């Protein structure tokens, strides 16, 4: 089953037989009568820890999955719930009670255009996705409204990379500029820092990080900081 791991696959390539081994297949793979077939073009990855196969590819359109952390923009406001755009094919439903400490009397004051950081609880192809602003332990833990700052759009691959623990870019940025960041798996990143110029520098480094080598990121940031200092003299 894993002779193709870390190899480039194209839709229609047969990955292997299921046989009796217990294995989970993720996005980009499809089981059709005992064989697993690739449905997207990309690199086949296998994580031994979760026994999980998936295809890593460069994509912009987000397809909701359960337990994904996403950033959404509120599009409609109803009495009991909000409609939130998370960049997928249809808007997600956010109930007004899915906030920490929200009761019938004190509902969260959100209106159209606000940003929320939420977790996807219901996601399947026949139903509207549903999101909540609570962690599994029903605590806020960073979920909820994002105030101020700036939101940028990037590809899904980059947002996964930013979420990985050893993400080099965020550590380097942290050395030079104090900032606050929320990364949504749907290709949206919310950044906030002391001054507008710093936020702009952070968002530009994140967007250009795909195109410049790792060792050139630090000089890129330092140069941007100098030009910012001269500008506001």
């Amino acid at each position, binding site marked *: 089953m894993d002779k193709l791991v870390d190899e480039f696959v194209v839709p229609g390539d047969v990955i292997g037989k299921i046989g009796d081994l217990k294995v989970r297949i993720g996005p980009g793979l499809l089981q059709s009568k005992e064989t697993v077939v690739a449905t997207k073009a990309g690199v086949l990855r296998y994580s031994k820890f979760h026994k999980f196969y998936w295809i890593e590819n460069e994509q912009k359109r987000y397809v909701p999955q359960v337990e994904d952390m996403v950033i959404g923009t509120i599009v409609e406001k109803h009495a009991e719930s909000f409609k939130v755009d998370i960049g997928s094919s249809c808007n997600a439903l956010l109930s007004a009670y899915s906030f920490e400490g929200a009761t019938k009397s004190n509902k969260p004051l959100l209106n159209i255009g606000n940003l929320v950081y939420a977790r996807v609880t219901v996601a399947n192809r*026949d139903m509207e996705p549903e999101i909540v602003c609570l962690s599994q332990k029903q605590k806020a833990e960073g979920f909820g409204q994002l105030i101020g700052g700036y939101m940028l759009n990037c590809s899904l691959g980059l947002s996964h990379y930013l979420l990985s623990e050893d993400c080099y870019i965020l550590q380097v940025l942290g050395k030079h500029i104090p900032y606050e960041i929320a990364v949504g798996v749907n290709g949206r990143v919310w950044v906030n820092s002391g001054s507008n110029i710093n936020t702009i520098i952070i968002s530009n480094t994140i967007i250009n990080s795909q195109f410049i080598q790792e060792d050139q990121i630090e000089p890129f940031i330092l140069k941007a900081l100098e030009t910012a200092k001269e500008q506001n003299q």
Partner: protein
Amino acid sequence: MVKKQEFRRLNGRTQGQLRSMESEQSLLNKADGSAKFSQNKTSVLAAVYGPIEVNSARKEKILKSYVEVTFTPALGNTTYLDKEKELLVKNAVESVILTTLHPRTQVSVIIQVYSDDGSIVSCSINAACLALLDAGIEMNGLIGSITLMNEDDDEDNNKCLMIVDPDLNEENNSKAMAIFAFSSNSNNIVMSKTIGTLTEDQYFECLKAARGCDSIIAYMKLAVKNRIMGQNN
């Protein structure tokens, strides 16, 4: 027996020789997936949005996603001739997309012709396939298309010569033409259209020669591999 000097066409290509192919992917910023495919002077840009919300409720399908194709020629506005090209591209593309994975959504493929120098429908189908791969739409295989043409052999004029991938002036004084589309996962005919009068054995001769379409599919795999692998290492 002297080997007959290999027949050379006006533009210097031999009978079965395709034009040199160039391709470029994810060049548009707004589209979910985009690709430019050009065969010498014929070049086409294809963009894909999907899966997105259906723009008119009448077209919404309950169990499948609705595939919509828009074909705009290089000059002026679309005429009824382009509507037929839209239908050919739509059928060829819809046979590879796994539409049942995203019911009640829409995948819109937009084709813009840069310059038309013959076999424009085949070039559009190849460009659409590359754009779908770039957008990460679930597919069960790649689709490639090829155009063939019958020309009167000037030596003995009852036998006619069958040439591959004609350009515009070859196409304009051709006796008959046939467009084929094959997918990579089965050697059945996905789409075929003939223009002009062909006898049956000429048609099946064209069908046999159209298997040259596998080289186009092989090229597409290489193109996507270079783009994705090129980025990672």
